[in-house]
């Protein structure tokens, strides 16, 4: 009796320890977000007199206003709003095109295999491990030869090309799990290539479509390398603009504006994460564990 009593108190202590550690971990992950938020609502004087964890003395939205429409990113002083728009204009077509192409590719590579299709899939898979540094020099040459001057157009093209291996992977890995009887039955019924795809396959692929859309959205919105290499001036995406804002040293450093701008740059993907968290995690793990 005493023994089992000791065991239960021990077990209780262990559980309390576990919860305490989980709580500390949560604090560690949340702290930067807390610091960003509180700093963005402070005035510069407030920042100098307080510290990282202190709450704002008076709640101010000035830094947000400055970050949105008058902060200087290098020579331009129009805030983040234009670059936010650039990122949207680049992201939406790039995500939609790469997802549509990826689903069609996955369809072919799982249900319409041909000689060499598996080798092609392998070639695509290896592409997921490429450090993009090894393709950006030629890509810059090619974009120059094509005469594609528009930053958004350039980025859409590049993001579609280097997103395809992931989108194809997502759909191919889902479609190989669809029973082949379904395909055979549909073919006997005379459903053609596209009819079967759009009428039967796409409606049952909605979870995979979600995973793919969310993955591509976060990848493309958060990209910096392609943005900094292939875009210029007022056509740059928000990640590049944020980096310019934070790392150009002209005048007094406005940490509150930096933080507001960083949150603005983070908001879309955070929103996607909060709304579609389940699909986000599935995308991460699917992209990770692969074929």
């Amino acid at each position: 009796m005493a023994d089992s009593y000791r065991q239960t108190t021990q077990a209780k202590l262990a559980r309390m320890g576990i919860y305490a550690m989980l709580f500390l971990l949560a604090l560690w992950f949340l702290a930067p977000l807390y610091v960003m938020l509180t700093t963005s609502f402070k005035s510069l004087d407030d920042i100098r007199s307080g510290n990282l964890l202190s709450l704002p003395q008076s709640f101010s939205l000035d830094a947000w206003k400055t970050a949105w429409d008058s902060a200087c990113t290098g020579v331009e002083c129009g805030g983040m709003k234009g670059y936010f728009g650039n990122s949207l204009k680049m992201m939406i077509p790039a995500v939609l095109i790469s997802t549509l192409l990826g689903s069609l590719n996955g369809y072919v590579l799982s249900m319409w295999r041909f000689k060499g299709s598996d080798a092609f899939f392998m070639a695509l898979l290896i592409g997921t491990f490429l450090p993009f540094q090894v393709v950006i020099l030629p890509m810059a040459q090619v974009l120059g030869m094509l005469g594609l001057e528009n930053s958004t157009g350039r980025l859409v093209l590049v993001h579609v090309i280097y997103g395809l291996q992931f989108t194809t992977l997502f759909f191919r890995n889902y479609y190989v799990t669809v029973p082949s009887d379904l395909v055979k039955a549909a073919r006997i019924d005379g459903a053609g290539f596209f009819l079967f795809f759009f009428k039967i396959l796409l409606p049952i692929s909605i979870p995979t479509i979600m995973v793919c859309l969310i993955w591509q959205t976060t990848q493309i919105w958060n990209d910096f390398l392609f943005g900094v290499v292939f875009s210029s001036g007022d056509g740059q995406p928000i990640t590049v603009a944020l980096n310019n804002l934070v790392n150009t040293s002209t005048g007094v450093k406005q940490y509150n504006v930096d933080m507001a701008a960083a949150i603005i740059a983070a908001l879309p993907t955070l929103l996607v994460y909060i709304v579609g968290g389940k699909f986000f995690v599935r995308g991460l793990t699917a992209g990770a564990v692969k074929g």
Partner: protein
Amino acid sequence: MTVNSFSFSRFVDVTLPKVVIAPTALACLVGFYGFIGWTAWLSFTNSHMLPHYEWAGFVQYVELFGNDRWWQAMWNLGVFGSLFILICLALGLFTAVLLDQKIRAEGALRTIYLYPMALSFIVTGTAWKWILNPGLGIEKLLHDWGFTGATFDWIINPHYAIYTVVIAGVWQSTGFVMALFLAGLRGIDDSIIKAAQIDGASLPVIYTRIIIPSLRPVFLSVFMILAHIAVKSFDLVMALTGGGPGFATDLPSIFMYQHGFTRGQLGLGAASAMMMLFTAAAVVMPFLYSELMRDRRG
């Protein structure tokens, strides 16, 4: 009519799938493999501001291997990469094991642990740059807490700056590692664990002897992904330290970007890009090979 419809269905069966896949095949062949070849070619030329395509042998590689900054960048990658991978693995596994103990509010905790993964490395770098600010960041916090003599200036200290990159990188990626391990833990057959419990094995023994060894494939893929993130790390350092102070946090990716795009040293940039590819391949190849061997056996 029948002949027509026959050839049409043949077209659908044989040609149409290939037509559909053609754009991607083209993009993949040209955009991946063609461009790798192109970069390789550039790395054997004397290109500076503009590409030249006359063969110049190994001059760029000779220059690269004689370049102190390059070796500093590779060394930094080694330090950053190994610490980043080790800490992420340990902390991620630890968190996953904790979360696997039938925790109340698991969903909420998971959401908190994983949200950094939704952020851009530029945002993460910006946030940590501010937190680690030598005058107003953690140092000031320590002063306000009474540790008035405390200094915490790692971000501007050439000897310690690389560790700030590790801190920020770990903060961003641990949740992801946790999610992968948690998925692995949930996939383990319960009956094995129950049998061990009946045999009187304690929880730590069950974890170290049975559960963690059976997560081997997860370890492998997590390692791969983290190594891959480390090799191509670019945005985090650009936002956090810009490669500085001096070249204290310079990485191959930054070396490549600056020589290839801002300093007009195309050939040297191409050579460094090739070295990055080899580094990534050196990490990935053993993994792909073991996967292939397993497929063949399975």
